[in-house]
């Protein structure tokens, strides 16, 4: 483990803008007043992920988790800011370097079905990239693929099957095998267990834990399920509407949430109750990212919101050692 983080997310933003076409611009000239729409999917996120750790990323649907994950995996470019792999900016690398860096960061996707090409056999899904990139020779591919399949707990004889011939849990394993096949050291897991039944989910989570040790992997583990994230992560980052609102060591964060949103999330982790429980919830809907509330994005739903929250964006500040939070309440205390 070196001191430079594996991944450094340096004030990264991602905006999706719908530009106006000719017709709309013409209409505007006639006074229609159509505006360009911009979604700040990710808004000024800073995050370092150290080698060998598991960084959990939670937040509600649409808060920008996947977008951030995709940028980390190199699938899309940040609108602002940089993402450094082992201290280097990918856009500044040579082609070959960039390719290698790209291979080092892999992604495991949410939907086990749609992330596998239904027209390819497992051996092609797993074996194509290593072969194309010369990681293994043409002859050794078969053995290599079988080896990897075994690593993820699949029978090597399944290599000639097509994705539709697998169950959800097995598909998830194929997806993991594909990522492992190019020998990455960083894996972005985007809701990788969300689509699985509980009993299968446990199998896959266990696999992640085991592989992490075996291959010395670093994870960015994205999920909306705080329970799952808590189980696997060392640190947890909480996002709300594109912004990072809290960051801290996993146990600590769950035990003592600082941000009111984290607090609410923690309260809603489903637990086995033997008694009837009185549910109470944060009121209000998740606001639209097209049109986010002013100031602290959470203020309309926050039980502690006050005037300042409406106006001023709280900055992410260290509130305890290794603990960052973005809430004005911390200033008052």
């Amino acid at each position, binding site marked *: 483990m070196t001191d430079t983080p594996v991944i450094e997310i340096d004030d990264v933003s991602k905006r999706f803008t719908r530009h106006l076409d000719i017709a709309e611009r013409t*209409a505007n000239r*006639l006074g229609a007043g159509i505006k360009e729409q911009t979604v700040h999917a990710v808004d000024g996120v800073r995050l370092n992920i150290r080698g060998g750790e598991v960084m959990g990323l939670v937040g509600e649907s649409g808060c920008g988790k996947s977008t951030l994950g995709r940028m980390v995996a190199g699938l899309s470019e940040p609108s602002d800011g940089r993402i450094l792999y082992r201290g280097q900016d990918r856009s500044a690398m040579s082609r070959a370097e960039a390719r290698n860096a790209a291979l080092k960061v892999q992604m495991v996707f949410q939907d086990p079905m749609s992330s596998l090409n239904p027209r390819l056999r497992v051996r092609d899904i797993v074996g194509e990239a290593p072969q194309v990139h010369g990681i293994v020779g043409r002859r050794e591919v078969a053995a290599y693929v079988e080896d990897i399949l075994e690593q993820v707990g699949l029978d090597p004889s399944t290599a000639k099957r097509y994705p539709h011939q697998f169950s959800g849990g097995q598909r998830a394993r194929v997806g993991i095998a594909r990522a492992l096949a190019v020998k990455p050291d960083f894996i972005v897991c985007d809701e990788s267990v969300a689509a699985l039944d509980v009993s299968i989910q446990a199998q896959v989570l266990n696999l992640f834990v085991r592989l992490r040790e075996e291959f010395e992997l670093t994870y960015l583990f994205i999920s909306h399920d705080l329970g799952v994230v808590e189980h696997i992560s060392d640190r947890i980052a909480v996002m709300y509407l594109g912004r990072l609102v809290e960051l801290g060591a996993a146990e600590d964060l769950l035990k003592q949430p600082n941000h009111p949103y984290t607090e609410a999330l923690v309260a809603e982790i489903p637990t086995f109750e033997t008694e009837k429980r009185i549910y109470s919830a944060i009121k209000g809907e998740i606001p639209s990212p097209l049109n986010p509330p002013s100031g602290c994005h959470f203020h309309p739903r926050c039980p502690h919101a006050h005037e300042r929250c409406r106006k001023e964006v709280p900055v992410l500040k260290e509130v305890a050692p290794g603990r960052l939070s973005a809430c004005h309440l911390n200033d008052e205390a």
Partner: protein
Amino acid sequence: MIVYLIRRFGQSVLSIAAMAVLVFLGVYAIGNPIDVLINPEATQAEIAATTARLGLDRPLYEQFGIFVWNALHGDLGNSFVYGRPAVDIILDRLPATMELAFVALILSVGLGVPLGVWAGLRPDSIAGRTIMGGSILGFSLPNFWQGMLLILIFAVLLGWLPAGGRGETTEFLGMRVSFLTLDGLSHLILPAINLALFKMSLIIRLARANTREVCLQDYVKFARAKGLSGRRVVLVHILKNIMIPVVTIIGLELGSMVAFAIVTETVFAWPGMGKLLIDSINLLDRPVIVAYLMLTVLIIVTINFVVDVIYSLLDPRIGLSEMKG
């Protein structure tokens, strides 16, 4: 809506302009109209005079320039053959074609949608299969062949209906229409059926496929779970949803109906624009051909526009703008 109008308008202008250029150049390449028009005994001087009168002696780009200039002023030129404005000639024929197309449309939608929904609700019943089988026939028999059989059976063998031509017409909303008189109606039936059959089959198939698909949707099940009667589920929940694709297709197809009327009109000697086009191509009457095509594009564009409006009435979701990365 205004964006929509502008976008449509832009597209239309583009379509029409493209059509104009292509057709103008294209027809020019076919042959020299003088060869067809003029009396073969005519002397060189007369040929030259006629050529000059029709403006055919100028270089092509000049002819095109003049054409565009005039077109921008609403004048698409005079027919070489009839000596009258090409647009007038087409407008003379337009009502006949439009009447035919509309009656065919009403037939194909009026029969196609119910039959298709029926077949979609009971895909495995005998009726459902028969409807589908029939639609394959309607779909696969070439149009002219259907027309031929219709004439053979209903006009020649049975003698129930006239074989061709347009019957008595009456004035209706400023257009000459034939569906108001018995004679006109009897002339209209066969061609309208001929033109409708193909589209009807198409609509049947579309309606059936969509019905089957919509039937599987949760909201249909939910509607039933709410305790609604089967009739209401079909007539409101299913029908409204399947009308969306059906309307789209109707829009696309009404345009091609106007175009396909060429075949029907040829077979049934229906005096519409389609026949005019064929005749004009044969006579190399370029202004009429160009005007016909431009007018057809205009009609199609208009229809598409109307369809889009209907579409947005039917489907509240459109108008939502999608995001681009």
